[in-house]
């Protein structure tokens, strides 16, 4: 399959601050690629390099076969959602979207209205008077409306309520079904997992892992907290398969579980359980579990 994005040693420094360091990445046509990382990791920097908004310090990148700087015409085939809430102005959403549609060679009016209806945003209001989430929807409409071959979305779900998030994920699914490509950044693994084929994790400007979502899911980690009626012995829980960092404070037991919860639940059932809370792993924890074997640098928790 053809590469839609190809980065080689792509590096961006802001003065002395590293923005992105030596990114090597290939995204293939038809793929949905999730780009994950904590705040300041370099996600927005990467995306703005793809759009030629910032220029690489070093290395190269090709998007849809062209260097971003020379690919002004290619931008017709890209749908971009900026990460920060940037859509402003007195004009109505409809006027703004029509301008952007015209700039890309024309977008049927019906399509704009249909997308706006689907996400549930009022196009007759001035953009700056919209709430944060509704402005984000205008941003999504403009990214999707010209049916681009490549969607580059910087934190697309931020500010959206859960129902709209689901609608958005459905839209991504349709894009993938039609063989088009998506590159989206996020802080939240769970949302990316639902739609992405592959996930890359970036941290401190470096891409530290790229994997198929299925593999990542198998390594999924949870923090589990169990409250018993009375204090329980720690040794009853240490050494269970996939259970780490067991900590007992009186009747409260905390641990992290990598993989199925079954062994822990079976072990806990020997005592009287009052409450059990399993929290979804945050990215950092997945990251830690991922590199549990490999890296000593993340030993501190």
């Amino acid at each position: 399959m053809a590469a839609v994005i190809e980065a080689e040693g792509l590096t961006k420094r802001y003065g002395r601050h590293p923005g992105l360091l030596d990114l090597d990445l290939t995204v293939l046509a038809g793929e949905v690629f999730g780009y994950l990382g904590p705040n300041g990791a370099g996600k927005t920097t990467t995306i703005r390099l793809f759009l030629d908004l910032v220029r690489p310090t070093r290395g190269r990148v090709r998007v849809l076969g062209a260097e971003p700087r020379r690919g002004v015409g290619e931008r017709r085939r890209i749908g971009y959602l900026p990460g920060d809430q940037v859509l402003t102005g007195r004009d109505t959403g409809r006027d703004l979207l029509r301008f952007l549609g015209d700039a890309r060679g024309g977008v049927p009016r019906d399509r704009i209205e249909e997308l706006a209806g689907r996400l549930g945003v009022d196009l007759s209001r001035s953009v700056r008077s919209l709430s944060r989430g509704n402005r984000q929807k205008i941003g999504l409409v403009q990214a999707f409306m010209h049916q681009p071959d490549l969607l580059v979305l910087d934190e697309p779900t931020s500010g959206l309520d859960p129902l709209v998030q689901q609608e958005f994920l459905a839209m991504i699914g349709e894009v993938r079904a039609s063989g088009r490509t998506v590159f989206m950044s996020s802080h939240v693994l769970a949302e990316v997992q639902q739609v992405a084929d592959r996930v890359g994790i970036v941290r401190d400007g470096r891409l530290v892992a790229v994997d198929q979502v299925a593999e990542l899911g198998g390594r999924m980690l949870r923090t589990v907290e169990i409250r018993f009626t009375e204090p329980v012995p720690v040794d009853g829980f240490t050494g269970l398969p996939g259970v780490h960092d067991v900590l007992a404070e009186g009747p409260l037991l905390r641990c992290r579980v990598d993989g199925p919860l079954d062994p822990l639940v079976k072990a806990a059932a020997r005592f009287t359980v009052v409450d059990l809370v399993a929290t979804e792993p945050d990215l950092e924890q997945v990251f830690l579990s991922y590199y549990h074997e490999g890296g000593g640098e993340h030993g501190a928790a």
Partner: protein
Amino acid sequence: MSTVLPSLLRRSLREYRRLAVGWTAGAVTWVLVYTAFYPRMRDQPEAAKVSLETVSRSVRDALGWTDYSTGTGYLQATVFGQFLPLIVILCAVLLGRGAIVVPEQSGLLDVYLANPIGRRRLVLERFAAMTAVLTLVCLGTFTATWVMNGVLDMGVPTDRIAATCLAMLLLALVFGALTLAVSGITGRGALVLTVTGATVAATFLLDALGQLVEGMRPYRVLSPFHHYLGPDPLHTGFHPGHLLVLAGISAVLVAVAAQAFERRDVGV
């Protein structure tokens, strides 16, 4: 809907429409209010003389306050002397800021540039929109002056008024283009205002001092203000040479803006 104009130019005109209407109305009001006092000056030449004699002759020359009681002198002193051109220049600088730095700081420029709109084209279309708005402001000034000139019998030939308004337009465009050039080089909004503001003040002073101080006279040609009222268009009409100098400076500055903006990072 018209597809004659490129989309960004149309968009820019939309963005600027309030500004265009506001500044045109302001310029027209300025002309109407000041010219309305002309009959009093004309009918009481003594009063005009007295107010003139309070300032020294060379200062009067520098400020263009010569014959207050004639229509031409009065227009020169009140309308085209310094306040109105400075206001039109301010309008040009605001338009120049709105072209790049303001949307850059809000991030909106990211959305514009993610379209098949090259950086150079963005600069050129923004300059075209700026020219359109300033033309409207100067056309409003011309029309108001022309009407009042007729109504109040000021006796200024129409082509002289037109020549002065055209020179004012080209003068303002120079500073609008300068704003674009600085914005092309740096994305820092405060710096853009500082540099353009300082340049307006410095070149204005250079021209004024050039009239007052003998030793400064040769340097007047460096000031765009000199090419505006220096040849005295209100008395002598069109001076293509000076107008071309102003247009040439704008062209160079727009080229610098396009070239520099093409090279730099956006929104950093």
